[in-house]
């Protein structure tokens, strides 16, 4: 048990440091701060010019959605880059339990995703002069954390493909596009076609964004609790799918030599 806990916490952090190649200021700041602020400003000013939605709407939507950058790419890196460093074989030849081994890698990613969301929210509020009620900040922080968690679940499922295919970044880019279109980031889910609304219900971020907007609008924590619960549940489901895929692809790699031939 103690060994598994150490692999989960220490091993997870070590592999995040080892494999997430963006962990240098020259990549980190532009990717996690500068780029996200530009994205926020772009949509906020488009919204202003078109007269469809206020700055708060875009601030919340984009702040929550931008957690997906680390949640998808860092998660993909911390599993997929094992291939490039040729450490994947060594990892899979070790007796370490796979659940703490791979879930531990998700923990720093959740923290990273939350940090990006929070930073964009604070900086965006300052730049756009959006006033968020003081009472809303604490529950808002909790919602950002839950959204980072659920998006990391999706990231884990996407990263699991790295045991079968060479490249996961392309898929991460596509998923980011799906999230930004479907989850009510810049266009309310209710304004989307019915089939897109249905898809949105099973994606991470949708419920979290709705909960965050309601909190800023003055709703209580109790009122948004069902949304937050659904958001967390979606994260758990995607995380479970991700782990199942990792187990499956590891077994397949032994059978079909996919670590060598993929």
């Amino acid at each position, binding site marked *: 048990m103690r060994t598994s806990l150490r*692999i989960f916490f220490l*091993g997870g952090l070590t*592999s995040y440091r080892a494999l997430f190649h963006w*962990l240098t200021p020259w990549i980190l700041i532009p990717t996690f701060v500068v780029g996200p602020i530009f994205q926020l400003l772009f949509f906020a000013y488009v919204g202003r010019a078109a007269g469809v939605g206020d700055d708060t709407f875009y601030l919340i939507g984009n702040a929550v959605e931008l957690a997906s950058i680390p949640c998808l790419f860092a998660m993909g890196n911390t599993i997929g880059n094992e291939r490039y*460093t040729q450490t994947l074989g060594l990892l899979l*030849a*070790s007796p*370490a339990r796979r659940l703490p081994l791979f879930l531990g890698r998700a923990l720093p990613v959740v923290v990273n995703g939350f940090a990006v969301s929070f930073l964009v929210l604070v900086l965006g509020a300052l730049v756009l002069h959006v006033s968020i009620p003081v009472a809303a900040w604490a529950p808002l922080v909790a919602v950002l954390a839950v959204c980072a968690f659920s998006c990391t679940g999706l990231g884990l499922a996407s990263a699991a493909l790295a045991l079968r295919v060479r490249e996961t970044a392309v898929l991460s880019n596509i998923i980011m596009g799906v999230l930004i279109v479907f989850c009510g980031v810049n266009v309310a889910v209710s304004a989307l076609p019915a089939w897109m609304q249905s898809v949105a219900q099973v994606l991470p971020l949708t419920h979290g964004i709705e909960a965050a907007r309601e909190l800023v609008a003055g709703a209580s924590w109790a009122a948004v609790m069902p949304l937050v619960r659904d958001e967390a549940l979606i994260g758990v489901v995607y995380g479970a799918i991700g782990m199942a895929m990792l187990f499956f692809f590891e077994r397949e790699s032994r059978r079909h*030599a996919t670590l*060598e031939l993929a």
Partner: protein
Amino acid sequence: MPVIEVEALTRRYTTRTGFRRRTRKDVEAVRGISFEVGRGELFGLLGPNGAGKTTTIKMLITLLLPTSGSARVLGHDVVAEPREVRRRIGYVFGGDKGLYERLSGLDNLRYFAELYGVPAREQGPRIGELLELVGLTGRERERVEGYSRGMRQRLHIARGLLHRPDVLFLDEPSIGIDPVGARELRQTVASLTSQGTTVLLTTHYMFEADELCDRIAVIAGGLIVAEGTPAELKSRVADGHVVEIEVFDGVGDRLDAVRAIPGVTSVGVEDGGHSQLLVVRTDAAATVTPAVLGRLDGLALGRVATREPTLEDAYVELVRQA
């Protein structure tokens, strides 16, 4: 009881190429090999590239499932009990990959110590001991991306020994290391077997196998073509002689003529930069040197020597016959 038991082990790979017209190709990398390795033995697996050495090791360390046959390590089946096998073995491969470049050597070792369940209080002393063993003390806090190839290889060795494995698999561990580093590596490997660790080694370097291995299996085309002690393998060609002739001009079109000399069993050419070394293996009765020199008439020749066969000669002969 043998530490490693391999029986009729086979592994087939299927590769597919093309997008619209998918073509499927089956390659039998290992074709029903059997061997055993005893406790504390250093067993060498020699063979040319693509012979099936690495595939065999990957099956033994549980990274690949055999297509058929069976393998047991320390009594545990590699298919049915992979975790039991993994706990007890170490795996080191050659080359400069397989390490986390962004981390220090120390953090690499700490991470693998966690993966192998080395208790926290034992990690520090064990890592210190291994750094000393492989000569990396003082460099352990530097990032691996700044390490030389030799340093990386030594770090690999330390990593493979962290959990005191009973069996160590070394897949071409000295590839690309300078002669001094390779000699130190051989000393390290030899000291492991003296402490009771069983080692399965693959290498291309015959002198390394000759110096280290208690027994050797020569593998070619997925089959074991010979097995025995280095002395036994050498004795297979001990009845013959080897004639080496240094040639300063191209030897190419004379090779067939040399091969045609009665008593010549094989002919090889080793490129030495400004010259070539013609290696002619003969059977016991033959005295072919004058005939060979006759076939090379007109070429600028250097040193001519006759010597006893080495393990490399035995290996070349065995692989040639396979």
